[in-house]
């Protein structure tokens, strides 16, 4: 029996949904292959999250708590992850593919001599390894990959698997950890625009994204009102973040965030390939654009050809009625 271990990422006091998606998948693989599904939580106070983690089938939960984990810093996180790998010796160690994961995954693989596949959209166990599918070439095509070894790291795109509850009574193992801040060569000076009450794009169920067509104040207000009615996260195309109209952290696409909400509404976005690479996995896509030939219509489930300044006000009103 081998161990399938899942890293549970915590951000702003909440477990990231993508971690629980990976845990759901790992539990399913463990059950059908006679392995054990385990999880590790690394946070200032990791035990706070054990109850939620055991809902998704982890039979053992490792906790590592230390004040150093208040903000993401790669050195202590690497040390903690390497330590839990020593302790749990996972055959597969799964991660949600967050920015925090991207920052450490290669280093962790180098540090522990593990094989690694990043940003996969599907994975399964094979003899002596895993088989996984990854979107490549700006997400235009898919590659089939295999990784072999005793320890394999895999990071999984958010939205690739559904949450699946299968509650267990988990054994909790608290791992001793200490980190001397003097060992930090890098200094985290500041975090700008921490999201606070904003909805995290990579975790959002609904996203309203604005493009060049909505760059003036009136367009922005309409887009924000639409997002607010739908309780959606706000996103942007590169054109808007480059123009300084929206914060760079809101950029969706190959160079920004990869998202996979249930509903994606693209307002005034033409649909450049780099943008599409970041949102094509959304379940339902709605595009509003006045250019009937905009490429976004090729991938949208529902396309509205029209001027957003004329379409959005009645659309917002209709949605408000439905929400009431």
């Amino acid at each position, binding site marked *: 029996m081998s161990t399938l271990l899942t890293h549970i990422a915590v*951000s*702003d006091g909440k477990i990231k949904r993508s971690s629980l998606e990976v845990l759901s998948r790992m539990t399913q693989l463990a059950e059908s292959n006679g392995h054990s599904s385990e999880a590790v939580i690394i946070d200032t106070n990791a035990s706070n999250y054990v109850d939620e983690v055991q809902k998704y089938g982890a039979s053992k939960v490792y906790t590592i708590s230390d004040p150093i984990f208040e903000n*993401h810093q*790669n050195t202590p996180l690497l040390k903690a992850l390497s330590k839990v790998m020593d302790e749990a010796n996972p055959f597969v160690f799964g991660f949600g593919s967050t*920015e925090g994961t*991207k*920052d*450490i*995954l*290669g*280093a962790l*693989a*180098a*540090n522990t001599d593990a094989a*690694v*596949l*990043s*940003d996969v959209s599907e994975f399964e166990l094979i003899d002596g390894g895993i*088989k996984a599918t990854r979107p*490549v*070439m700006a997400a*235009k*095509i898919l590659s*089939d*990959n*295999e*990784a*072999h*070894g005793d320890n394999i790291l895999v990071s999984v795109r958010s939205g690739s698997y559904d949450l699946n509850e299968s509650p267990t009574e988990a054994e909790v193992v608290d791992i001793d950890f200490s980190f001397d801040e003097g060992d930090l*060569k*890098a200094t985290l000076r500041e*975090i*700008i*625009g*921490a999201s606070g009450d904003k909805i*995290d794009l990579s975790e959002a169920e609904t996203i309203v994204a604005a493009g060049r067509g909505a760059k003036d104040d009136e367009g922005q207000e309409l887009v924000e009102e639409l997002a607010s009615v739908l309780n959606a996260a706000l996103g942007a195309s*590169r054109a808007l973040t480059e123009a300084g109209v929206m914060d*760079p*952290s809101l*950029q969706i696409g*190959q*160079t*920004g965030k990869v998202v996979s909400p249930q509903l994606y509404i693209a307002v005034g976005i033409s649909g450049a*390939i780099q943008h599409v690479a970041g949102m094509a996995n959304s*379940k*339902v*896509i709605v595009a509003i654009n006045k250019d*009937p030939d905009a490429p976004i*219509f*090729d991938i949208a*489930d*529902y*396309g*509205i*050809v029209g001027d957003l300044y004329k*379409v959005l006000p*009645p*659309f917002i009103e*209709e*949605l408000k009625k439905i929400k009431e």
Partner: protein
Amino acid sequence: MKFYVCIKQVPDVDAPIQIKDGNLIQDTDRMVLNAYDASAVEEALVLTEEHGGEVEVVLVGPEKAKETIRKALAMGADKATHITTEDEVDYDSAVYANVLATFFEDKEYDIISCGKQSQDTDAGLAGSMLAQHLNLSYATNAVGLSIEDENLVVKRQGDSGQEIIALPAPCLVTCSNDMNEPRIPSLKGIMQSKRKPMETIALSDMNVDESVLSAKTQVTGYKEKPAREPGQKFEGEPDELAEKVAKLLDEEENVI
């Protein structure tokens, strides 16, 4: 200040791609400097123009990749090292990182940089792997760089905001292509690039442990992405369109 920028030659992702029997068929005349690496080169040039120093690019790849090295030299890099490989190799990120780690063993540098990922595989692993091998402090996904005293100050895009991190040299940073517009080489730059020093080292002559040259991960094939079918496109009066689509989202899709 000595900058090394690790660059890679990649297929142009905008060129037509076909898949035949699970293999990628691409126009091999359309190979380009990885866009994220181009941003790393640009940033190194800007910082050395401001603070003095030298930019050297390093590339691991086949003979053909010399064109890409010339591009970086034409942009303004001072010199280059080309670690030559066979034409067809099955290297994963870990192999590249191991080869580069061997190269850097006896080098002196202040900053090593590279793109945050390569645009063909989008793996995003080699940078932090290399930092780990060289025991360097590092930051990934930089969207802004500056130099203050002896520190490289990195603005990086994290999960919940932009983090400002000071790294003492020597250090490593991986760059997003959101941070700048890489310059287009001038004619003068292109002419000068031909006279700039380029050292060529055959990978087989380097003292790289054989065991790290066999990749732990393999691409076993390629397949088409199931295409999203274009859905329904509506034209007409805004009020009617708004009502129709809102209703569909609510009643058919159940996503409101």
